[in-house]
C-alpha cells in the first residue's frame, strides 16, 4: 500500500547506516566525509593523533564518528552518532548506528527518523544474521529506500562474481520483505573505491558511486498529505489584555493539510468546530501541511487538552482500546504477558496491558514463530494490547506518526519498546 509516496527531490536527506559488526559503517562515513572534503583541519588532526595513540597503522577514518572514549578504545560503535554534511546538491543528516546485537535499540533509534538506509555487507562474509535483522528492521520502520554497499571489495580482489552472488542473496531478501527501492554498490570504504570517486579496480561496475546515488536518489517521503491529523501538544493561553480570549492549540501537523475555515472534529470528545486561524509568531497562515509546527485556534470554545487530536470530520482515525502491533523490545527485562506498561502515542498517554503475543519473529528464517513466544531484549513480535482508555490511531503504513508508539516501564521510566500499529 502506497498512500503518500510522492517522489520528491528533497534538499534534506536523513539516512542511517546499518550492518554487522566490523562491516565498516563508520569507515564508510569517514571516507565519504574525507573524500568530499567535509572533514575540517582540526578534526583531521584529532583523528591522526588519536589513531597514533591507539597504535593504528593506517589512517583510521572510523575515529571520526566513534566519539565516546569506550568506542575508540574498543574500536566499536555503541550508540548512534549523528553527522552532518552538505554538497551543492543536498544536505545530509547521517545516523551512524551500531552493529552489535546488544545495541539494536540504538540502531532502531537512528533508523526511526531516516528516509533511507545504507546497509553494509562484508564481501568476504556475505549476508549475515545482522544483515537480515537490519534489513528487516528497516522495512518494519517503513524505510522505503535501501542502498546495499558490498564493502571490502579490496579483500576479494574486486571480484565481480562474488559481488553478483551476494547481490542475488540480497535480492531474495528484498523481494521477501517487499522493499520498494533497493540499490547495490561494490565499494572499499577503506580505500575509497566507488564511494566518492569511481574505482579503477572495478571497471565492470557501471552504476553510480555512493555519493552520486545519495545526491540524486528520489525519496518518497513517509509524509501523509491526505488525512488531516493534528495532535495537540499544549494549549497556548496568553492571559494578556491584547489576546484576552486567545486559545491556541499548539502542535505539529501529523497528516494532511489544514486551512482556516476547515471543519474539524476533536478527539476523543467528537465535538465539531471550524478552524478560525493558524498562527505562527503574529503571522496568520493560509495553510499548514504535514510537518509544520503551528498554533490552531477554533471558532468555538471547546474543552481540549494535551493528547487530544483535531481531525477531518469525514475521515476519522481508528478509535479503540484494542490494538494489534509489531514491537521491538529493548529492555533487559523480558516483556511480560499480562504486564502493565505506559504507552505514548503522539502526545497522548495511556496505560496498557499486554493481552497476547501472537507470534515472535524468527530473524534467521524471517518466519513467524508460534512456539517460542517469550519476548527478550532485541526480539521483534506481533502482539495485542488493551489500553486503559480509547486511543485514536492509524496504521503505521498509513501514517508513521499517528501509527507509532513507545512503551514505558512505569517503575524505571525507561523506554522499553517501540511499537508500529498494523
Amino acid at each position, binding site marked *: 500500500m502506497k498512500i503518500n509516496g510522492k517522489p520528491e527531490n*528533497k*534538499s*534534506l536527506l536523513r539516512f542511517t547506516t546499518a550492518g554487522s559488526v566490523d562491516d565498516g559503517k563508520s569507515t564508510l562515513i569517514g571516507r565519504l566525509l574525507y573524500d568530499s572534503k567535509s572533514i*575540517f*583541519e*582540526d*578534526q583531521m588532526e*584529532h583523528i591522526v593523533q588519536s589513531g597514533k*595513540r591507539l597504535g593504528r597503522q593506517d589512517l583510521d577514518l572510523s575515529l*571520526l*564518528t566513534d*566519539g*565516546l*572514549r*569506550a568506542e*575508540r578504545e574498543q574500536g566499536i560503535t*555503541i*550508540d548512534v*552518532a*549523528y*553527522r*552532518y554534511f*552538505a554538497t551543492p546538491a543536498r*544536505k545530509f543528516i547521517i545516523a551512524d548506528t551500531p552493529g552489535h546485537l546488544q545495541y539494536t535499540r*540504538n540502531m*532502531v*533509534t537512528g533508523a*526511526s*527518523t531516516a528516509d533511507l538506509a545504507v546497509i553494509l555487507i562484508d564481501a568476504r562474509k556475505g549476508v549475515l544474521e545482522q544483515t537480515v535483522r537490519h534489513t528487516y528492521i528497516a522495512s518494519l520502520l517503513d524505510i522505503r529506500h535501501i542502498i546495499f554497499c558490498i564493502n571490502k571489495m579490496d579483500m576479494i580482489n574486486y571480484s565481480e562474481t562474488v559481488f553478483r552472488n551476494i547481490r542475488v542473496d540480497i535480492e531474495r531478501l528484498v523481494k521477501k520483505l517487499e522493499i520498494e527501492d533497493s540499490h547495490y554498490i561494490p565499494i572499499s570504504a577503506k580505500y575509497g573505491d566507488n564511494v566518492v570517486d569511481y574505482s579503477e579496480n572495478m571497471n565492470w561496475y557501471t552504476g553510480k558511486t555512493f555519493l552520486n546515488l545519495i545526491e540524486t536518489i528520489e525519496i518518497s517521503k513517509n509524509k501523509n498529505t491526505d488525512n488531516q491529523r493534528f495532535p495537540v*501538544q*499544549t494549549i*497556548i493561553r*496568553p*492571559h*494578556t489584555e491584547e489576546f484576552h480570549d*486567545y486559545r*491556541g492549540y*499548539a*502542535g*505539529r501537523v501529523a497528516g494532511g493539510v489544514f486551512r482556516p475555515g476547515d471543519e474539524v472534529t476533536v478527539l476523543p470528545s467528537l465535538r465539531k468546530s471550524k478552524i478560525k486561524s493558524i*498562527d*505562527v*509568531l*503574529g503571522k496568520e497562515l493560509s495553510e499548514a501541511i504535514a*510537518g*509544520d*509546527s503551528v*498554533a490552531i485556534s477554533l471558532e468555538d470554545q471547546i474543552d481540549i487538552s494535551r493528547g487530544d487530536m483535531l481531525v477531518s470530520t469525514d475521515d476519522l482515525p481508528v478509535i479503540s482500546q484494542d490494538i494489534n502491533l509489531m514491537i521491538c523490545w529493548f529492555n533487559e527485562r523480558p516483556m511480560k504477558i499480562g504486564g502493565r506498561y505506559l504507552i*505514548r502515542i*503522539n*502526545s497522548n498517554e495511556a496505560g496498557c496491558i499486554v493481552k497476547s503475543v501472537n507470534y515472535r519473529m524468527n530473524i534467521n528464517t524471517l518466519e513467524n514463530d508460534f512456539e517460542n513466544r517469550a519476548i527478550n531484549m532485541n526480539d521483534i513480535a506481533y502482539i495485542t494490547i488493551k489500553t486503559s482508555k480509547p486511543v485514536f490511531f492509524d496504521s503505521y503504513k498509513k501514517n508513521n*506518526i499517528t501509527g*507509532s*508508539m*513507545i512503551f*514505558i516501564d512505569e517503575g524505571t*521510566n*525507561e*523506554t522499553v519498546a*517501540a511499537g508500529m500499529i498494523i
Partner: protein
Amino acid sequence: MKNINDEHLKELEAEAIFVMREVAAQFENKVLLFSGGKDSIVLVHLARKAFWPARIPFSLMHIDTGHNFEETLKFRDDLAKEFGAELLVRYVQDSINIGRVVEEQGVNASRNKAQSITLLDAIEELKIDVAIGGGRRDEEKARAKERFFSHRNEFGQWDPKNQRPELWNIFNGRKHSGEHFRVFPISNWTELDVWQYILNENIKLPELYYTHKRKIFSRNGVYLAWAPFMQLKPSEHVFESDVRCRTIGDITCTGVTLSKAESLEEIISEIAATRVTERGGRYDDKRSEAAMEDRKKEGYF
C-alpha cells in the same frame, strides 16, 4: 543568499519548536540555559515562535563565570526585559567563595569546567527538572552522541553508554524525583544553519559577532581576547587587530577569528569557506581527547 536553504531550515525550525513544546508540556520547573551566545539567542527566538502570543514559559538561566565580554551581559539583560522572561543568574565566584569549587591556577586557568558545579547546585536549589540548551551535534564528537531528551541522574551525570532509545519524535521525559533532563532543540542544526536562520529571521546579535578592533594574543595557534585577569606566558604579546567571535563563552577559552566581516552575509560566506570547526578555537576542548565527554558526564552543558 537568502532562500537557499529555506525548505531545510523550515524543517529544522518545526522540529525545534515541537521539542520546545514537549518540554513545556512534560516538565514543571523549566529553564533555558542562556549564555548570550548565538545558539542560545536562537533558542529564545524559537521559544517565542513556539508559544506566541503567550510569553516564553521558561526562565532564562545564565551561569556566570565572571569572565565575560561586557557587551554580552547587557545584551542578556535587554533581551530578557524585551521578552518579559525571568532571568536567573548564578555565579561561579559564589561557588568558589563557599568552597564548592577550587579555582584553577596557572596560565591556562579557566572557570569553564567549574560552571558544571554552579549549574548543578542551581538545579538542586531551584528544583529544576529540565534545562534547555543550545548544544548541537555537529559541534563536537561527544555531542554527536546526545539525544534530544538527555537524561541526568540524581548526581547530574550523563551515562552515554546507556541512553534511552529515542524513537521517531516521541520523547520520554519521565524521571524519578531528583533527576533532571537536558533538552537540545537544535541538535540537528549545523553552524551554517544557525547563521542562515539568523539571517532569514533577522535576529539581533551582540556586536561581538561582527568585526571590531580588539586586543588579542596568540596561544597554541588560537587567538584569544586579552583581558586584565588573563595571565600571559613570557613569549606571548598582546596586539590589536580586526576580529570577530565565532562563538561567545567565557573569555578565557573563547577563541576569536581574524575577520573584517561586517554583515551576516559576509559571516556566512566566511564560515562556508572555513576549514576549521567552530570549536576548533575553543580552548576548553583542546585539553584532552575526551574533554567534552568527561565534562558532560560531570554535568556540563
